[in-house]
């Protein structure tokens, strides 16, 4: 294995802090959503983020994507601090984020057209990735004509065709039925094993978090903080064997569940009292 300590990290977070106002009024109470989040993600790493609801994991991803600004702290992409969305990072959204008035191909070419790619080059690139996710028969379909799983494949094809080397995925399979989700996980991992892009993947599904990750970031809530980072030692390609039956899978899953469970129980006790 290469010495990863010397390489510039794909993404570095330094002291990220974020507060939200509870209402629009000027003197509204604020709530601390993220407090002092520090993190370093290697190039080509698959990091999943899991935590109890309300721990600020989506906010953290939005800050990494520069869709939201942190109150304090820095997001550093490949050594450079960033404040605006950039072409190195591409996002996949929980609700798919497809433009309902655009066809599949128009949705996938959208980021390229924004960057003024020639139309035929954009189309070729888009077609290659649409084929990759198996939707070549649906290039001219509209999103509402597709199932949830197919819509998210379009979302994935769109992110891939930007050529970004960092994928930011916000519970991308959360709104997809269980069986399709397993298939999508397999496809995503297959694509990742081919290209080794850096992936940050938010999920609330424990199995999914362990199944996909090189490392799982466990967050705690009130305020959102990094609680623990757990390395997942499972060989690739992971779908060539029964990953869930692997002893490391059970070990990591058990460890994370133990921690999550404590948080959840505590949260419930707070709510009761």
């Amino acid at each position: 294995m290469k010495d990863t300590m010397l390489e510039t990290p794909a993404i570095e977070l330094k002291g990220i802090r974020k507060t939200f106002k509870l209402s629009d009024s000027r003197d509204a109470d604020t709530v601390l959503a993220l407090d002092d989040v520090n993190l370093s993600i290697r190039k080509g790493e698959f990091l999943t983020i899991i935590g109890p609801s309300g721990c600020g994991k989506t906010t953290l991803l939005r800050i990494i994507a520069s869709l939201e600004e942190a109150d304090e702290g820095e997001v550093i992409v490949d050594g450079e601090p960033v404040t605006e969305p950039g072409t190195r990072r591409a996002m996949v959204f929980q609700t798919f984020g497809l433009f309902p008035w655009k066809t599949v191909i128009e949705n996938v070419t959208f980021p390229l057209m924004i960057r003024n790619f020639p139309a035929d080059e954009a189309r070729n690139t888009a077609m290659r990735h649409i084929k990759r996710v198996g939707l070549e028969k649906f290039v001219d379909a509209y999103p509402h004509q597709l199932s949830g799983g197919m819509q998210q494949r379009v979302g994935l094809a769109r992110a891939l065709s930007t050529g970004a080397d960092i994928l930011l995925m916000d519970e991308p399979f959360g709104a997809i039925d269980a069986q399709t989700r397993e298939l999508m996980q397999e496809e995503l991992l297959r694509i990742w094993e081919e290209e080794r892009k850096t992936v940050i993947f938010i999920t609330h599904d424990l199995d999914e978090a362990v199944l996909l990750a090189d490392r799982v970031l466990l967050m705690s809530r009130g305020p959102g903080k990094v609680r623990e980072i757990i390395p997942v030692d499972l060989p690739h390609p992971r779908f060539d064997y029964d990953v869930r039956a692997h002893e490391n899978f059970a070990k990591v899953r058990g460890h994370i569940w133990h921690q999550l469970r404590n948080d959840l129980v505590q949260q419930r006790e707070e709510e009761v009292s």
Partner: protein
Amino acid sequence: MKKRTKSDIRRDQLIGLAVFLAAWEITAQIMGNKLVLPAISQIFAALWDLISSGELILALGESIWLLIVGLTISTIIGFILGALVARSRTAYWMLNPYFSALFATPTIALVPLVLVWFGFGFPGRVIVVVLAAVVPIMFSVASGLRDDPKDLVDVARSFGVKGELALLYRVRVRAALPVLLAGLRLAAGRAVVGMAVAETYLRLGGIGGLIKAYGSMFQTDYVFAAILPLSLLGITIVSIIGRIERKLHWT
């Protein structure tokens, strides 16, 4: 009941039309009073006379021009006010009562004021059309832009769309387009009414002027011959907008 195909509907419409025209013709022949109810044949003769003399084409041109100018100005004003009202609650509560009042007031009631303030020339007529048409456009812009498609705005931003203006036209306006066009269609219908009012009550001109002129000479067949293209004009405009609407709607 079995589902009706397009040709079934067309057949029903043709039968309805034939019965209607026959009933009209028979009634007219029995009454024998051209002043009250001219026969279909007389109306078509009058229509042919209006066409061949060039009178109708000229009037239609004048009316269509008035509509185009009036609707364009209504769209611009309606868009600016609608966007303002959608963005600012203060503007909404300040302006909304007046626009609701304007929407409820028959345009014809405002004609004397327009005459005093703007005269009876072309500008006055345009104002009447705008008064009739601007409110539905403003309302539709306001309601279309108020439901902010936050998720899609984020998508666009994340893929490099920068600036409020670019986000407005790439996402917000496009997402609101079906609502905007529905408002424009409603506005077009009202604009045709406003146009006819302006042409008959300010100064005679266009199709409205034709109708009024022949009406005051009691040439009822010519009145009908002029009403026919007027309603055709209204139907055509509304159905063109409806067609664009269907094309741009995604479900």
